[in-house]
Structure formats: C-alpha cells, structure tokens
C-alpha cells in the first residue's frame, strides 16, 4: 500500500498532469472577476479570502491550491527518490527545493499576511498593535515637467527617531513594512500609506536563491551537450 502510494507520488506523469491542472485553473481564474482589481483578492490574506468568497467565485482557486498541494508532495518525493540514487546531479533538486520553499512562502503569507491603508495629512499619526504611534512629520514632493509627481517622500517619527519613506524605499519596523503610495501637496500635504506584513517574503527569497543556483548549475551542465 505504502509502496504503491510512494510510486504514485514519484511519477513523472502525475507531475505533468498536475502542472497542466495548475495552468488550466489559473487560466480560467484569469478571466474570473475574482482576479480583477475589484475582486478583493489582493486586499486580504489568501486563506481569509478563500474562507469568505462564495464557492461560485473561488472554485478555480480551490482547485489550483489542491493541484499545487499535490504537486508539492510530488516534487518532494521525486527529489528524495532521485537523491537516494548515487551519481545524480543535484541541480534539478535545488530547483525543486527552491520551488517548494516558494510554495511554503505563499502559504505563510496566505495565513499571516496583513495589509492596511491610511490616508494621512502632515502632522497626523497611526498606531502599531503594541500602541506605538507613527507620526507623519513632513510630506514633500516634486512635480515633473508634465505635471505628474516625479518624486515624493514622507518623514515619519517613531520611538527611535525620524525615518524617511519613498517609493521603492519602504520603512521596515516591527516586522511590518510602511510604504508611501501617493502624495497630494495641496490644499494641505496628504500621503497615502500602506502597512504590509508579508511573513513569506524571506522564505520566498531563499527559495528564489536556491532555484537560481540550481538553474545556473543546470545551465553549466547542459553547456556543450
């Protein structure tokens, strides 16, 4: 029984079918209202959304998650099986390990992610769960030649001093990232902030590194063949 289960999960054919399943469900989902900007899927952690969304709206994502879960086991068992045999290159298995970590990262973010927006004028503040306040000390911006904002920044006062946030330069504090999304300078300077928590980010990054190392090793091995 266990042997049969092992050989089923070791099967290349199973992997190919699961990949096809993931592609088909994602393709169907891309035409669904759920994946549009108004679908709410990006506004909350995935698992919360899945619990709340009607099945008629989220069925493709349930199927996709099911395919990915089995694909996770399939990739894991295949790598373990191949590594037990001597003389095999570890490159594809580093890529598998990277893929597995990235799936794990998505799971961590799907469970423990957080996102909230604040629109605050200069001088206003918002709070962290432990009660610490973040005061918006100063909002500045530059208007480009075409009338669009070419750059903007906010200075935020925290317990440990004043820190600047700019587009692509968030402020990380207490496991949260504080992002500045937009700024209006008149009639009073106002900024739109987003506070994010992405618990899977580090795991995803390590997964991406492993995948890239494995990929480069594979390219080097295939060179000239």
């Amino acid at each position: 029984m266990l042997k049969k289960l092992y050989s089923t999960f070791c099967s290349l054919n199973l992997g190919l079918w699961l990949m096809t399943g993931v592609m088909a469900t994602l393709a169907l989902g891309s035409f669904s209202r759920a994946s549009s900007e108004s679908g709410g899927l990006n506004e909350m952690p995935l698992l919360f959304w899945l619990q709340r969304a009607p099945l008629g709206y989220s069925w493709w994502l349930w199927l996709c998650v099911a395919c990915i879960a089995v694909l996770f086991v399939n990739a894991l068992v295949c790598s373990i099986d191949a590594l037990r045999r001597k003389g095999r290159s570890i490159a594809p298995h580093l890529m598998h390990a990277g893929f597995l970590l990235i799936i794990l990262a998505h799971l961590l973010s799907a469970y423990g992610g957080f996102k909230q927006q604040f629109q605050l004028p200069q001088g206003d503040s918002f709070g962290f769960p432990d009660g610490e306040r973040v005061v918006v000390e100063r909002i500045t911006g530059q208007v480009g030649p075409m009338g669009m904002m070419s750059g903007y920044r906010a200075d935020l006062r925290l317990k440990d001093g004043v820190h600047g946030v700019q587009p692509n330069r968030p402020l990380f504090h207490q496991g949260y990232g504080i992002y500045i999304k937009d700024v209006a300078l008149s009639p009073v300077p106002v900024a739109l902030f987003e506070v994010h928590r992405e618990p899977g980010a580090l795991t995803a990054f390590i997964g991406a590194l492993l995948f890239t190392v494995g990929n480069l090793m594979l390219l080097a091995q295939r060179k000239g063949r």
Partner: protein
Amino acid sequence: MKWLLITSALLYVASVRRPIFVAALGCSLAYLASRGLALGRLPLIGPQDTLAFFSGALGLMALPFVYSRQIAGVRWFSWGCGALAALFAALALPFPTINMPLPPILDTYWFELHVALAFFAYGLFGIAALLGVAFLRGGGRQALDLQYRAALVGYSFFSLSMVSGGIWGYYAWGTYWLWTAKELWTSILWMFYSLYLHLRLKGQAWDRGFAWLGIIGFFVTLFTYLGVSLLMRSSHSF
C-alpha cells in the same frame, strides 16, 4: 530616429543571408540605444518601446542560433528569425512613443531588470518555436536539441525575471505577489516551460510532442505579453 526601426524591419524581412540579419540587428540596437539616450533609461514603457525592445531582444538572442553549425542545413531559419523580429518591429511603428520620465514606482533597476530579462526570455521562446517548426519539417534531431537549449536558457531568464519582479514588487508594493491577470499568465507561462523541460525526461518517443509544445509555448508567450496587456486590466496593462 524612427527610420532606424523601419530600416531594421526591412532588413530583417530580407535576412535570407546572415550578414543582412546582423545589419538588421545593428539598426534595431542602434534605435534602442538612441531611445535609451534620449530618455536616460531603458525604453521599456508603452507598446511602442516594448515591441521595439522585443524585436531587438529576439534578434540578439537569435544571433548564436543563426550562426550555429547545427542548424546550417535549415536554409530558412535565419530568415524565419528575421521575419519574426520584423513582425514586432512593424507592430511597434503605429504606436506613439511615450517620452515621459519614469513614474517614481518604476524608477528602480529591479524594474528594468525584470522587464529586460522577460523580453530576452520571450525572444528565446520565439526562437525555440521556430526550431520546433524546423524539426517538424525534417530539420533533424539537432533542431530539437537546439530548441531545448533555447527554451532552457529562456526559462532561466524568465525565472530570473520573476525573481527580480518579486523583489521589485516587495519594495514597491509591499508584496512579491499580486493576484492579477498578468501574474496569473506569467505563472502559466513559467509552469508551461517547466512542463516542457520535464517532458524531455520521457524520451525520444515524445520528440514530436516536444517540438509542438515548443511552438505552442510561443503562443502562450504572446498571450502573456500582448493579450493580457491589451485585453485584461492589470498593473501591467499598457
């Protein structure tokens, strides 16, 4: 400098001989360099610049294959690569150029790396499709081996593009992943070539299927790039 793009398209169409292909590529790269110098950044915003960049990337990635001895017997291959690059250069022409400075959120090397690597990958997937046609038309096993190499290198570029996109997204938006049509199709494309590379393990009995998959992959690529950007609303729309 649009005449450089027009010249490159015309030369690509006429690239029955390899030196003409190289001249076409030279014009294409000179056009992209002139746009880059005028803008002070890589020309990667809007349909005109991205189509021209795609054409240039396709020509550049095709160069080692055009000069490969393994495909020397397939006389139309150089012209095929040229015709494909010419098609995207021609498609770029009707669109206006967008000369605005980069919005602050796009003003990072991660964005440029993300987009440039994606186009190198798209170019290689196009070349892999042509090599699939070459194999199905009797080009021999060498065409299929080259197809595998083109797809593998393209897959590597594409994976790096996804990684750099994730890093950019994390610093720009607070998340390395968004549920939008573009991200879904990007994942589909990545999964498609993962499946393609795994299918090779099934051996020579699957050679024709393998070649066909390399051709279909380019249509998935085109839908991911053009279809999603033009037909669906997402953060990547033109």
